[in-house]
């Protein structure tokens, strides 16, 4: 579904590579979490997958990116929009202002895709319910709280039913309940097997519970790529500033104090953690 070969990129007027020889294959239906410290190039990778690099941000690009069967460099943003959906970092500026109500704002993308009128409202209602915004249909998007605007931005892109959904820190304005709603919604989309999700997120506990794969980026490069259970407990990852889930931290501390045997695998979710602490020691 996503295929990146030796991708390197510099923003125009800058000499530093923000993406340095990135290669990556993602299959349909995967839920990929991208983690990494600030400035690692996570957002830039998202832009490259969604086509904003090179169609919006020019700069020097090497390598190829193919998403949903389309070579990004050869496809216009207008054509890509139906196949690749992108939710950018700041929710406030994702409200287009082209329409006056929440319902119309979500419908706007569907209108542009040429979806028949009688299908638009059911699809919008379904998506608003998915992100927990039912009842807000007639409100002005600008009158919503930060968290609600973030849900709206996500709904607006999900409603377009792209094959690949790219979300850059989509829960930054959300409380734990909102974060859970969004992750659950994304999870349900990947469960259908139709949608592939790529998500940048700092909240590692949520990545651990929902992502099927984690990519850790540092300094414009991919440092680790694999199963969340392995990547998130990798000591290298913690060293470069990605951190670790609080479960992993607690478990590491317990091992260091000698409470738990060293050979026991570190946990990343609550359930693993219970097992980690409850399993009797052999010695």
């Amino acid at each position, binding site marked *: 579904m996503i295929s990146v070969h030796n991708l390197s990129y510099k923003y125009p007027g800058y000499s530093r590579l923000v993406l340095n020889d990135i290669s990556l294959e993602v299959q349909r239906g995967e839920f990929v979490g991208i983690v990494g410290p600030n400035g690692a190039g996570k957002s830039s990778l998202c832009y490259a997958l969604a086509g904003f690099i090179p169609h919006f941000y020019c700069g020097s690009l090497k390598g190829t990116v193919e998403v949903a069967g389309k070579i990004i460099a050869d496809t216009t943003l207008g054509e890509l929009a139906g196949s690749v959906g992108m939710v950018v970092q*700041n929710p406030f500026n994702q409200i287009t202002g082209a329409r006056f109500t929440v319902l119309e704002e979500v419908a706007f993308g569907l209108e542009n895709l040429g979806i028949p009128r009688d299908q638009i409202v059911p699809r919008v209602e379904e998506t608003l319910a998915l992100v927990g915004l039912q009842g807000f249909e007639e409100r002005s998007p600008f009158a919503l709280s930060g968290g609600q605007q973030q849900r709206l931005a996500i709904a607006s892109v999900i409603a377009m039913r792209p094959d690949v959904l790219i979300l850059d820190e989509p829960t930054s304005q959300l409380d734990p309940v909102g974060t859970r709603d969004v992750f659950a919604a994304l999870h349900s989309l990947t469960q259908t097997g139709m949608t592939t999700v790529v998500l940048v997120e700092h909240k590692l506990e949520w990545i651990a519970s929902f992502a099927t794969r984690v990519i850790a980026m540092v300094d414009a490069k991919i440092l680790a790529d694999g199963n969340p259970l392995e990547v998130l407990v990798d000591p290298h990852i913690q060293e470069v500033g990605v951190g670790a889930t609080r479960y992993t931290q607690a478990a590491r501390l317990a091992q260091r104090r000698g409470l738990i045997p060293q050979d026991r695998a570190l946990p990343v979710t609550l359930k693993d953690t219970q097992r980690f602490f409850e399993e009797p020691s052999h010695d």
Partner: protein
Amino acid sequence: MTIPFSLYAGRESGLHPVHPLTRLTIAGFVLIAALLIPWTLGTYALFAGLLLPLAAWRRVAGLLLRAVFRFVFPFALSLFLIQGLFWTGGTPVVSLGPLSLKAEGLAFAAAMSGRILLIVSSFLLLAMTTRPDALMLALVQKGLPDQIAYIVLTTMQIVPRFQAKANTILDAQRSRGLETEGSLLRRIRGLLPLAIPLVLGSIVDIEERAIALEARAFSRQGEKTSLVDLPDSTFQRAFRWMLLGLTVALTVARLVSVLR
């Protein structure tokens, strides 16, 4: 739902939906007529015989009359007083001591007031009964570029946000000791810390908003649909052409009579 900068009253009667272009044509016709009709009585007749019944039909007659009273009446009153009292060499109709109202002045005031009444109320009626987005959609369907419609609609919503942001920055700068009072030079110097974050922030906003628009397939080529249906009819189309013809005829007739 409230739409900023809009007078839309939200009282759709449901029956007989009138196409936004038909309303726009009526407003345009009345506007031209207001400027060209040579008979004073004609302007008032057009108001009472066309605009008021239309307003009543759309259930905004009360709103319209109140707005007219607020905007047009004070202006008309001063016209009557000033033109009536200070018309030089006219025939007095009423006299009170040294003051007298002249017939010619009153007639001129009546003519002017009639024109202003028509211009203001045709615009008010259009604005009260028509959602700006529906009007824009109708124009886009007739070939107005999408981008222009977008700029109009988004500006209506973003200007109030821009003001709010300016106030936030102003408060923040004030709390850090920014001078917003005092001599002019001082105040201009004080303005820079307000203007710079506002402008830089807005450039970033515009960039991100452009990305958001792209992500919503705004630049996609090909057939687009719309959530709102704007029913039109042969009758309405014929009516619009007739009004357009009437407007042209009125203009030509007026030109001919002026040139002769």
